[in-house]
């Protein structure tokens, strides 16, 4: 029997986050981070964007992007702190901060996406 260990679950979330962020973030970042602010492209109208956001499917996809991506960050960041700075003795604290952050962030994402008028 396999011992119940959080690692496999965390790794799954990490990987899922890695994939969705790699698929969706580049284009979203190009559009909302550079193309629209710099005026290369006309940003979508408020009505259009709201309509898009109102679609439950969009919200589901966005949640599916945000939550795993946050866990992706949490998992990687935790390991980077361990390995890069050799502060493994702070193991528990770091884990709480990282995964705690991801949980809080996911909750915030759920709240915000739920409350799109």
């Amino acid at each position, binding site marked *: 029997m396999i011992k119940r260990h959080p690692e496999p679950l965390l790794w799954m979330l990490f*990987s899922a986050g890695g994939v969705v962020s790699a698929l969706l973030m580049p284009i979203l970042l190009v559009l909302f981070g550079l193309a629209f602010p710099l005026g290369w492209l006309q940003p*979508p109208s408020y009505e259009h964007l709201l309509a898009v956001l109102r679609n439950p499917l969009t919200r589901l996809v966005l949640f599916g992007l945000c939550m795993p991506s946050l866990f992706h*960050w949490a998992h990687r960041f935790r390991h980077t702190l361990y390995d890069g700075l050799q502060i493994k003795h702070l193991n528990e604290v770091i884990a709480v901060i990282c995964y705690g952050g991801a949980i809080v962030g996911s909750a915030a994402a759920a709240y915000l996406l739920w409350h799109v008028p």
Partner: protein
Amino acid sequence: MGQRHAYTEYHPRWLRRPVSTYWWLQKRSYFAFILREASCIFVAWFVVYLLMLVRAVSEGEMSYRQFLSWSASPLILLVNLVSLLFIVLHAITFFEAAPRAMVVHVGGRRVPNGFVGAAHYLGLLAASVIVVWILLGA
């Protein structure tokens, strides 16, 4: 008996050389690794940025406009430019790693890693086209 497999007597004078805290500066490939790992910070940043956009849109047209002009401020532009570089790095390294974890068999034959990698890039292309179409095309 009883000394199975481990016959090494502990030698007190073995030389142990601890790894330096700055090991990742000592080799180019280690540094590239740390950069790759650092990309996760920008992934998290973009989630925050995206959620701020969602909130702005939820709060009405005014806030949306404010968000757009805030996003055009030099600092935020710079942050996003750097983020983009890291996220591209993240995407490339992730697509390179993914086929190593997944061995795909089709009809009993192993699909070469190159195909699996290419499939990811196709996915990226498709996702991008859909996003652009939803936001700008319709």
